[in-house]
């Protein structure tokens, strides 16, 4: 096993070195595909797997039950991406637990989790950790209005889904432009937890879609008293991006990726699986902050970042953003990058402008001339940029804003002129009195006597 891992590492290394086979994913190209049976899978998912190989992934296709499968060795990830195409598998590898997969995601690994009507509890428990709750055993997604017409069956379990969420970061322009995409889906529905901001539904059921018994439509025992999943709340494919920007796609259907449905008539499955796998494996919409800096607006651009400011200083804040797609980094163009200065409450929140002259070909610089609040304390300067499908950016610095120095306060206030005048009149009066006292010598010798006693 160790030898195999070494070999794989060497292979990965050599593939990076070879210019023709450059990896397109930002985070790496070691992909593990777990299937029920390798031979059958290579046949069933040939289009999908070939496209992955073409995109430069080093794909390892393994039996789900293969006991030699491990995700980490000595705490290091062995793979960058995992695709679970074995929905019925009750366990993976020798003893891979849910923790191992969660740990895989927490350490930056990406996953595609495909389900089907025959879904194991392992998958259900794993998905539940991400806020995805697959429907009960024995249910399947059914739509009597939109279904794959070439495979007419009484239960209409191969539905033609078309309700895509408008997420340009995930879906490519042809799919977004297509008003009636036809994505064939055969599998199980899930309920997505809308309370979790990290999770978003990508493909949901249309009005006529519902989740029902896959075996016999009218079997009463399966008719639950609970509200069934249907319509918009019925999740077919959902996307998840963790706080560490690892990406996970949950698809209720493993057949979605199969040659059978990709090759079906009018099918847009090919486009769709291409988009979601590119997104999941960090081949596009990867956003990063290259650099950020702030300085006094009056200081030279190259000057060092000060460790504190004074109240009401005008500062210049700059942040460089890049986005990754089509194999390289590009400047990230947007008009909604916001800067925030908070001290328990937000004191400032304003939109940054894009600098027209780019610093380099791969970054877009956003800047703002910001007048700091007239309040001292430790402020957090942050750019917290979270957009659906894009990697989240959360840049924050804690910067102290000091009060003015004792000699920086304004002098000679106009409001204080009466007081200045008063003090000078006082001085003059005192001098005049002294003079009168000193030089008025004649009769004072008598009157000053009792004063001294």
């Amino acid at each position, binding site marked *: 096993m160790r030898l195999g891992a070494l070999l794989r590492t060497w292979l990965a290394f050599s593939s990076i070195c070879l210019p023709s086979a450059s990896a397109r994913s930002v985070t790496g190209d070691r992909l593990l595909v777990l299937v029920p049976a390798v031979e059958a899978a290579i046949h069933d998912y040939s289009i999908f797997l070939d496209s992955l190989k073409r995109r430069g992934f080093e794909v390892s296709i393994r039996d789900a039950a293969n006991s030699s499968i491990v995700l980490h060795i000595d705490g290091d990830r062995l793979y960058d991406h995992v695709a679970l195409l074995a929905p019925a598998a009750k366990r993976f590898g020798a003893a891979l637990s849910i923790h191992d997969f969660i740990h895989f*995601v927490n350490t930056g690994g990406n996953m595609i989790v495909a389900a089907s009507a025959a879904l194991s509890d392992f998958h259900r428990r794993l998905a539940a950790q991400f806020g995805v709750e697959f429907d009960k055993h024995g249910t399947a997604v059914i739509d009597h209005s939109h279904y794959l017409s070439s495979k007419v069956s009484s239960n209409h379990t191969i539905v033609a889904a078309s309700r895509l969420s408008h997420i340009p970061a995930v879906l490519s322009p042809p799919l977004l432009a297509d008003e009636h995409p036809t994505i064939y889906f055969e599998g199980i529905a899930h309920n997505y937890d809308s309370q979790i901001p990290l999770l978003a539904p990508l493909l949901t059921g249309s009005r006529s879609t519902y989740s029902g018994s896959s075996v016999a439509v009218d079997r009463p025992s399966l008719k639950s008293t609970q509200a069934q999943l249907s319509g918009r709340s019925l999740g077919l494919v959902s996307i998840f991006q*963790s*706080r560490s920007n690892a990406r996970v796609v949950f698809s209720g259907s493993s057949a979605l990726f199969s040659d059978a449905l990709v090759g079906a008539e009018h099918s847009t499955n090919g486009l769709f699986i291409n988009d979601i796998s590119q997104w999941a494996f960090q081949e596009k919409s990867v956003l990063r902050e290259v650099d950020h800096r702030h300085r006094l607006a009056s200081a030279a651009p190259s000057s060092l970042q000060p460790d*504190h400011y004074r109240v009401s200083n005008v500062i210049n804040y700059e942040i460089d953003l890049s986005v990754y797609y089509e194999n390289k980094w590009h400047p990230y163009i947007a008009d909604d990058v916001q800067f925030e200065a908070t001290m*328990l409450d937000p004191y400032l929140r304003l939109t940054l402008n894009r600098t027209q002259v780019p610093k380099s070909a791969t970054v877009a610089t956003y800047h703002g001339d910001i007048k700091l609040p007239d309040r001292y304390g430790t402020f957090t300067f942050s750019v917290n940029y979270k957009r659906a499908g894009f990697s989240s950016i959360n840049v924050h610095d804690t910067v*102290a804003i000091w*009060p003015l120095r*004792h000699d920086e306060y304004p002098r000679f206030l106009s409001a204080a002129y009466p007081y200045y005048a008063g003090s000078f009149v006082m001085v003059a009066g005192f001098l005049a009195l002294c003079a009168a006292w000193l030089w008025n010598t004649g009769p004072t010798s008598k009157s000053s006597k009792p004063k001294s006693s």
Partner: protein
Amino acid sequence: MRDKVLGLSAHDQTSLLRLAILGLISVVAIGSRLYSVIRFESIIHEFDPWFNYRTTRYLVDNGFDKFWNWFDETAWYPLGRVVGGTLYPGIMVTSATIYNGLRLLNIPVDIRNVCVFLAPVFSALTAIATYQLGKEVKDATAGLLAAAFIGIAPGYISRSVAGSYDNEGIAIFLLVFTFFLWLRSVRLGSAMYGALTAVFYFYMVSAWGGYVFIINLIPLHVFALLAMGRYSNRLYVAYSTFYVLGTLASMQIPFVGFQPTFTSEHMAALGTFGLVQLVAFTYYVRTVASQQHFQLLVRFALLILFVLGVAVLVLLTMRGVIAPWTGRFYSLWDTGYAKIHIPIIASVSEHQPTAWPNFFFDLNLLIWLFPAGIYFSFRELTDNHVFLILYSIFAAYFSGVMVRLILTLTPIVCVMAGIAMANVFETYLDFRKAAPAELEAHDAPPSATGSMKRYYTYFPKIAVMVNFMYFLFMFQWHCSWITSSAYSSPSVVLASRGPDGSHHIIDDFREAYYWLRKNTEPSAKVLSWWDYGYQLAGMADRTTLVDNNTWNNTHIATVGKIMASDEDTAYELARRHDVDYVLVIFGGMLGYSGDDINKFLWMIRIAQGVYPDDVNEQSFFNREGQYAIGDDASAAMKNSLMHKLCYYRFGDVMGPKGFDRVRKQRLPTSVELDNFEEAYTTENWMVRIYKVKELDSLGRTHHAVAKLKGPRAAAHIPF
């Protein structure tokens, strides 16, 4: 009278003796304050001294200009503290001056040692100042006795042992010396002494908030003298010089600023200043005009002016032009005020009303001699004695209201006791005009019975003196014992004795602070109750949310709320305040009663004052109305963060039938804690530090994560 000894005249002999005695008193004063250094080490004590020490270091390292403009962003996170403008810089500047002076002389000394030994050195100066004061109001005997008393009086030692690097350490010297200068300037009518009074008043203002006592007592003295018809030009010169110079000087301290012109505490001085001018004017007018007319006129004018003045003062106060009295001041008049309105003041033990035994504990014999001294002052009512009596009355009252004001009472008690004792000595040690000689002159009895009578007249004197000498010895004994047993613990390091008499040093505080210093990010924010803020800043060098400078009640209440809330609310609040670590003091293992669970009720009260909807004191008592911590505790208590942080995994150490040794109660059977993870617990479990967990990467709650991982899986993280 006698022959010369060592070639010195009698006068020079007395001078030499006085000098020697004063020198010895100084040595004793310094020596008796060194117990803590000998027992423990040269270390800064308690809480506030840590702040003074830290700022002194900053001053020494960065210079005065930076110190003056220092904004400390690591305190009161995220609000910060304008340190330069919110402290009394006197003690720091004093230490830095001494330090730099010694460096100039090529004596390399650690700034810490300067700070540790500053208070004892100043106590020697206090003894000398008290001698001067005693000499000023009576004679050198009274002065020496007063100096001897103040040198060892526990009431003063409690605030000035080595390591107790606090404002009071130098302020008492300044208080006594300012009063001495004031009395002398009144006696001599000297503008120079008036100016000197102002200079030392300025020093006092720069050193301690207790300067308010001076700026109220001196005007009161003047007013009393005026009311008694004792106006004199000497008084006029002394007060006018002092007030004008002193006030202008005091306004140079940023923390005081314009307060002397608009706060109620300073209005009495201003009013008295005006009154003195008026009185002086009338006296002048009287000398140039016919008396009957003007006396009548003056009396009415004075009355009207006084009434008008008071009316204007009241009006301005009501309109808010003159700042109303601060809460701390109200609590001086009504001892119940603080408990109801400002729990943050009442929660400090040194702000509690004084119990009777405290007076005896801190002053012993002196408290009995005190009234005698007042009596002797009344017998010979000079201007100076009026001052002493006023000082006695007010200091006695205030010391009854607040424990820590025994400190201001101690100097006057010592002076009064010195006067009383000097009178005793004068009367009973006077063997010169032997009584028998007078008797012989009157009755001319036989000489055989003469010696007998001589014996009879000597006997009471000797008996009284033996008695008093015994009292004085006992006083000395008492003072040494109190100093060594009660006032010489640094409270940062604790000592305990085992059953076999062995000596144990409990150093958990420094262990925990040092752990924080070495193992956490320099920018880490540590949340703890405000008592430990200064120590955290000084020893751990980490950012704190609240500290002993209790200027922002809301922020403290927020910390109290975090401690009193359930885990989830506390977690949310802690994350909002960027808290990285939470530190609690727990005495259940050791039986240390000053721990956070015992302070918890104050946290709840303070939090309730600001967040009455979220925190309710009653809900922390169980159904029997007890403050329980075990399984019979109330739900709010069991769910509170404080309870969880203190008792988390404590049962593992104490066993299933474990007891909390402070509260003598059974431990709770299970304590669940998910949002915080234990980072460090000290040897004796006195300090427990928890890390606030990061948000879960997958957006789950920490309860869900813990549930998935199974019980106790997360608890055993090796560090």
